[in-house]
């Protein structure tokens, strides 16, 4: 049937075109098929990247199209690396990335381990746990803002119920010490299921006979966990950490919706600073340089991490 269809298509192809196609090598044909994708990638990814690199050496401002564009050399880069506020934003980002990854990995792995026990109703609980991940970050940001509201928010009332502190004193988004944690809590709530899913895949990939052999050797549960479960699931955990690390390094939506970077600059992560420089202060050249620095940082760290991941996998 398939052969007949192919024959029909071949017969229907006009002779001049058929002759041309016959003359193309397999490699040529492969290039022909992937060239639209490559062109698209060049247009929307590679060209803007090189354009941003070019802009990063200039004083260009998108809101001053008539102004002469001057070449500044590395001045933008020097200014960024010497800017106290930029370093503060990087520290805030690092703090946020560290705590979200730590909490999501610990809770995510624990949940995966529990779900893997296959208790009664585990499918229902798995689905329920996955719900936050399926929501849009815009929706999550907005409803958590209401939950955190000190006068009407459920979160403040719940904490108040437990601690007996008046709810109006629990100002998660206004308090300098609590605001970073308010974002960490929401991000952890939303993305722990994602880490859990990856860890669950890792746990399910461990062959049952290894545990049976360990049982025969009278290895305790604790010993089995440390010697079998954790080492064999580690590549998956590391993969989850990589994905979440990259995602959280460029976190914007949740921070913007919950605190807008405030109070003051307490939760101003690098992406918020970048947006402010690029689209509020209109320092296009300066912000391009900052974007390149962030890109290099993420790219470099991710590369180091992937090498470590490969080593773990080879063990």
């Amino acid at each position: 049937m398939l052969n007949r269809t192919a024959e029909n298509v071949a017969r229907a192809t006009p002779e001049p075109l058929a002759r041309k196609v016959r003359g193309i090598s397999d490699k040529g044909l492969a290039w022909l098929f992937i060239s639209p994708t490559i062109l698209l990638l060049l247009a929307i990814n590679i060209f803007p990247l090189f354009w941003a690199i070019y802009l990063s050496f200039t004083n260009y401002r998108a809101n001053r199209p008539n102004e002469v564009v001057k070449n500044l050399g590395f001045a933008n880069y020097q200014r960024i690396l010497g800017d106290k506020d930029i370093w503060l934003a990087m520290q805030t980002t690092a703090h946020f990335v560290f705590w979200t990854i730590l909490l999501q990995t610990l809770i995510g792995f624990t949940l995966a381990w529990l779900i893997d026990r296959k208790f009664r109703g585990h499918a229902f609980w798995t689905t329920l746990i996955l719900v936050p991940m399926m929501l849009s970050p815009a929706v999550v940001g907005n409803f958590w803002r209401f939950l955190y509201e000190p006068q009407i928010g459920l979160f403040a009332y719940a904490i108040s119920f437990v601690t007996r502190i008046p709810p109006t004193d629990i100002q998660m988004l206004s308090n300098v010490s609590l605001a970073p944690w308010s974002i960490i809590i929401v991000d952890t709530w939303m993305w722990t299921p994602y880490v859990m899913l990856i860890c669950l895949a890792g746990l399910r990939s461990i062959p049952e006979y290894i545990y049976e052999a360990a049982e025969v050797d009278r290895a305790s549960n604790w010993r089995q966990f440390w010697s079998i479960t954790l080492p064999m699931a580690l590549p998956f955990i590391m993969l989850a950490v990589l994905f979440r690390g990259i995602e959280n390094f460029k976190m914007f939506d949740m921070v913007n919706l919950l605190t807008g970077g405030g109070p003051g600059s307490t939760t101003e992560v690098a992406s918020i600073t970048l947006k402010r420089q690029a689209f509020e202060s209109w320092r296009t050249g300066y912000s391009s340089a900052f974007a390149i620095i962030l890109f290099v940082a993420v790219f470099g760290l991710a590369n180091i991490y992937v090498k470590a991941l490969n080593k773990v996998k080879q063990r």
Partner: protein
Amino acid sequence: MKSRLKLALGLTSAITASTAVSNVAHAEDLTLCWAAWDPANALVELSKDFTKETGIGMKFEFVPWTNYADRFLNELNSHGKLCDLIIGDSQWIGGAAENGHYVKLNDFFDKEKISMDDFVPATVVGYSEWPKNTPNYWALPAMGDVVGWTYRKDWFSKPELQKEFKEKYGWDLGPPTTFDQLKQVAEFFQKREIDGKTVYGASIYTERGSEGITMGAMDVLYSHGFQYENPKKPYEMEGFVNSDKSVKGLEFYKALYDCCTPPGASNSYMGEGVDAFKSGQVAMHMNFAFTWPGLQKDENVGGDKIGYFVNPKGPDGEQFAQLGGQGISVVSYSDKQEAALKYIKWFANKDVQAKWWSLGGYSCLNAVVKDPAFPASQPYAQTFLDSMAIVKDFWAEPSYAPLLQASQKRFHDYVVAGQGSAKDALDGLVKDWTQVFQDDGKM
């Protein structure tokens, strides 16, 4: 076959003709860009008269305040043709004039005998002129606005509260005339039980993302003696922006935020302020005058329950208020500039301006606001007039955006996050603003 061909040809002609007719009908339609807020709805209503008179249809592109600057500055910077007319914020005037986004209106005003002397002087300087205080006009003053205060007249007039207040502070509870009085009133109401509900002193601007905290803090700083620059030497800011008086002003704003705002009000601007007042949370409410018609009509807090007062005096008796509002301009990239200018000519007309005020817009025309009947025309009309007489505005330089971002950060870091001192914040602001002007080659 023939009949089918005829039918097909007939349909094609009909479709072509209808498209052509509709194109003719809409060829001169103008698009007016502005913020999505109550006055914009009033303008839609008002503009129906323009369409009736001229046959030119009006379309509107309204964007919420939070995205207003981003959206329309992007449009102007990309030389977009979406807007034929734009009601742009007062701070945009420098950039829009220098970058050629707006059509210069001097020749048009001369030709049509539209005199800027017919408009409230502060609005001409604030919304139309660039460079400031020179007769170079880029907009017609369209919507006067200024920061002022509303208060709960019904709470202020409760005898038991009046008695308690008098005993505590030694003066009659009423709309404050100085900032010290304002703080006393705010403290008095903070966390007080009124009608079985806990209420708070005041709602003030604390928003971080766009311009909120700057508009609020400046409202207080001006009356404490803050100046943007040396009046004799432009761009010299040291000792003016960070003078001792300015430091006191900023300390006052922080003290007001710390003592007397509702819990969680760390990111409040116009909308949040209106919500706080309408929901009966606060005794006083700082906001632009455009919010007043809506509040006046509100069933729960409007009518006899609401009062208005001008921004109070500072410690040395100085009294200023932050200017808001906008002028209407013709976008230089529009293909319909002739029709757009017709709209501006129509809008400058006295009768149209009078109707604009009656619909809820704030006219800037002297003939309207100096009419003897004006102060009594609305309960807030006199406060609006008094406030417009004492306005000051933020930088309107082409670099207003980075200037604004710097003040947003410095003020929020100090007032809301409590980092550093007021002196640190203002010293830092001088440093940031100096850098911006150096980048611009102005220093």
